[in-house]
């Protein structure tokens, strides 16, 4: 067929583009090689170990896991926790998104940051707070209510903590979708006789449904792969990520630990594919026609008050956790001696200064690398065509789908011997940060570059501008927000990482979050509070500086792009 012939010719051309542009060729080869080495190879190493018994291929590890309730229980627990948290967090995120995008509640300046605040928090800051407030010596449970309880450890505590940690994921997924729903549609429904509540259920909610589904899946995966919260507050409630870690490092049962981590991979990769190939095509096509974009009061006064109270309640709850951590830093012995002290700071300085410094150094090194690499890959994917482009696109996004626990185990297995002996070095940590966070930069970059149609660049060239000039004056300014958003995310995620790096830290290169975990485990909660406090301050300061230097707004950095 002529069509096929054309296709073949295009393919030939695209291969030709690669060979005729040596810089592009070398660049693509280098990037592909590094993606294979740092994403595929470790995964392969972990998978191989989990599938072998004394060097021969075997499914015995998996068989063992599924036939022993000790392990299969943790799978059940993880799934159950994930489902509960996904449902609740999506609900909370939806209410926030609805209140902000459609409800027109007062105090948007306060609620918008509150809707995303928890994502910049250290991984188990909320778990720590919950222990201080509701634990055995908790301020609220023990002191105010005189309850003798350890009930906060386990499912209940985990649900609270993960919902608070993850509702921003739901919010960020949903707010853009709700904003994109043409207000004319809701106005029109009312015009046709639907009361406000009916309008919500027949128009707004159905249109948000794909987003709700996406959000549920994202949070589900987030809960499943969470390591920081369950290790602190999980108690007897065993989940997969913690089980894998304990098995691998505690018991030294490497194959079983690897197999447990591989099991985490199944849902995450599944969701990754659903996201990439199903939900994308499910989104409702926008219809032609110019919208007035004018809302009409589609929320009743009572509903508005309800939304306000709910979002305020959640916000105050979140703030309470922050206040608890900060107070915990200054209190001599929580629940026993409430007097003011600075001794936790002194102690934290002693044990934590070097770690804080090293954590910062590594995050600062890896952030620009991540952002630049992400933008380069995005640029190649959007603007160049050559055979194998899909592979580049796929690989660069894949690490998004791999749970940290699997990455950590994979890295240890892959890089502990020649020819890639990296364990114990700073390099391995930087590699983890870069390759785990690069998908965010790639995604943002692709979205930004796609907005700039080739036409804009061509018309600039057409007006006589050189390619370099076009890039500097047209392309660069337009991708700038995406670049800094990617950089900010990379930094925050590097600073607050735990699930992968806990396998990779060494005495020389420790990470602050791992140190906080250690302090919590030995019940030095004051010091843990101080270190968490320090981490929050560093992250906030970084975001503040980026916003001041670049003039970008919160919504541009934590954009509504999914």
């Amino acid at each position, binding site marked *: 067929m002529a069509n096929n012939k054309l296709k073949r010719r295009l393919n030939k051309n695209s291969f030709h583009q690669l060979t005729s542009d040596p810089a592009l060729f070398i660049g693509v080869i280098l990037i592909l090689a590094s993606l294979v080495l740092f994403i595929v190879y470790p995964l392969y190493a972990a998978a191989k170990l989990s599938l072998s018994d004394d060097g021969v291929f075997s499914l015995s590890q998996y068989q063992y896991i599924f036939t022993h309730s000790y392990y299969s229980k943790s799978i059940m627990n993880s799934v159950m926790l994930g489902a509960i948290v996904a449902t609740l967090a999506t609900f909370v995120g939806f209410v926030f998104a609805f209140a902000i995008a459609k409800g027109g509640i007062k105090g948007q300046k306060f609620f918008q940051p509150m809707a995303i605040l928890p994502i910049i928090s250290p991984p188990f800051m909320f778990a720590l707070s919950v222990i201080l407030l509701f634990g055995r010596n908790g301020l609220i449970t023990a002191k105010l209510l005189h309850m003798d309880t350890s009930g906060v450890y386990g499912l209940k505590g985990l649900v609270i903590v993960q919902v608070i940690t993850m509702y921003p994921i739901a919010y960020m997924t949903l707010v853009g979708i709700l904003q994109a729903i043409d207000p004319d549609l809701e106005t029109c429904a009312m*015009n*046709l006789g*639907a009361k406000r509540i009916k309008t919500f259920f027949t128009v707004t909610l159905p249109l948000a449904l794909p987003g709700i589904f996406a959000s549920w899946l994202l949070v589900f995966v987030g809960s499943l792969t969470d390591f920081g919260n369950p290790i602190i507050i999980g108690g007897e409630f065993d989940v997969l990520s913690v089980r894998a870690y304990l098995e691998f490092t505690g018991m030294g049962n490497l194959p079983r630990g690897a197999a447990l981590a591989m099991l985490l991979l199944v849902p995450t990769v599944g969701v990754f594919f659903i996201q990439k190939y199903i939900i994308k095509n499910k989104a409702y096509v926008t219809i032609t*026609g110019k*919208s*007035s974009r004018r809302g*009409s009061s589609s929320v009743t006064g009572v509903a508005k008050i309800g939304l306000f109270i709910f979002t305020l309640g959640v916000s105050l709850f979140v703030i309470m956790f922050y206040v608890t951590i900060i107070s915990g830093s200054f209190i001599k012995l929580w629940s026993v001696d409430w007097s003011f002290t600075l001794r936790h700071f002194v102690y934290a300085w002693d044990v934590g200064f070097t770690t804080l410094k090293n954590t910062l150094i590594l995050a600062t090194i890896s952030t620009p690398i991540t952002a630049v690499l992400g933008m380069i890959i995005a640029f190649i994917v959007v603007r160049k065509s050559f055979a194998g482009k899909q592979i580049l696109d796929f690989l660069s996004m894949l690490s998004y789908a791999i749970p940290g626990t699997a990455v950590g185990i994979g890295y240890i297995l892959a890089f502990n011997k020649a020819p890639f002996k990296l364990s114990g070095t700073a390099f391995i940590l930087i590699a983890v940060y870069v390759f785990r966070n690069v998908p965010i930069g790639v995604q943002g970059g692709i979205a930004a570059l796609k907005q700039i149609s080739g036409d804009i660049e061509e018309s600039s060239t057409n007006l006589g501008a050189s390619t370099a000039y076009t890039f500097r004056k047209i392309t660069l300014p337009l991708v700038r927000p995406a670049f800094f958003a990617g950089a900010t995310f990379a930094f925050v995620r590097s600073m607050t990482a735990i699930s992968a790096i806990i396998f990779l830290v060494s005495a020389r290169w420790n990470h602050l979050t791992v140190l906080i975990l250690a302090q919590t485990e030995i019940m030095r909660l004051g010091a843990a509070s101080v270190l968490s406090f320090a981490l929050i301050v560093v992250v906030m300061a970084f975001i503040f500086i980026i916003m001041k230097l670049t003039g970008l707004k919160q919504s541009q950095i934590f954009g509504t792009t999914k």
Partner: protein
Amino acid sequence: MEQKNDNEYLVLKDLTKIFSDGRGNEVTAVDNISLTIKKGDFVTLLGPSGCGKTTTLRMVAGFELQTYGDITLDNKLINNVAPFDRNMPMVFQSYALFPHLTIFENIAYGLKIRKLSKEVIKNDVAMVSQMVNLVGLENRYPGELSGGQQQRVALARALVLKPEIILFDEPLSNLDAKLRIQTRTEIKRVQQMMGITALYVTHDQSEALSMSDQIVIMNRGEIAQVGSPEEIYNNPNSSFVADFIGNANFIDAKVSEIGSKSITVTVQGNSFEVKKTDEEFSEGEEVALAIKPEAVDISLEPTGFTGKLDVSSFLGSITEYKIEFENSFIIAIHSNTAGQTVKHFKMGEEVYVDFKKEFFRIYKK
């Protein structure tokens, strides 16, 4: 006892809308307008973009609460009636079709809300689909239809409710020119057939002229003139209306004498009389004269008026000339007789301009 009065079906009284952004900035979008609409009439709000048409319509529909003023429908004050209880379906500029519902479900939406039986819904939707020529598309989604078809779905969704009044907000502005003309006859036909009162917003004068029983010209939130299409076209009461509705040419003139019925003005040294209007003028005053292009021609013989040709466009039955006259540009229209060749003028050439002087209207400058 309430008296039904079909001459005062929809009444807007002193209607005003002031938007404030909460930071002390206020925009008066609609400024104290009063309007009476007869039952069964097709009434058009016409005016340039931003003059407050949509805001007026949205107040009538109840989407926006007026700052002052009253809206009365069929002798009942409806100021406080919720939008979903007003039963005044509106056709949106964006069509506002529900993208997650099929065409059938879109059209049936209002009927379902009214809890009609499945049978009735099916019948009514089928009838309306027939009427607006949508048969066979019922199971498609809006995204799968062309712009013209989407527009008809929006219309059907409103008509199926058998409303007494229907609101339109620039429903044709997203269609291409040919379809626009087709659809406006369609709308007019259906409106007359069903005897529905229509309040129609547009910024397109030919749409307004061809469809309306009454035209309401709006300017900066106020009503500039109300009247039938002929009245407005032939007797615009202000230079704004003259300009907007007739694309009038404006030329500078000076008042030389004021008579009892007419005013003598001077243009390019020629004096002639124009009809007096309500406006007061004084001798020696600089004024503007408006004249429609079809009352201006280009002449081969001297007429006393000369201009400089800028561009000529041959359009088949007519030729349009753009002429620099005094300090402004005017448009002249020459009817071409079939078979005769048109005389060609060069750009910048001096030409004689022929005004049908009885069509001049005088306005304050």
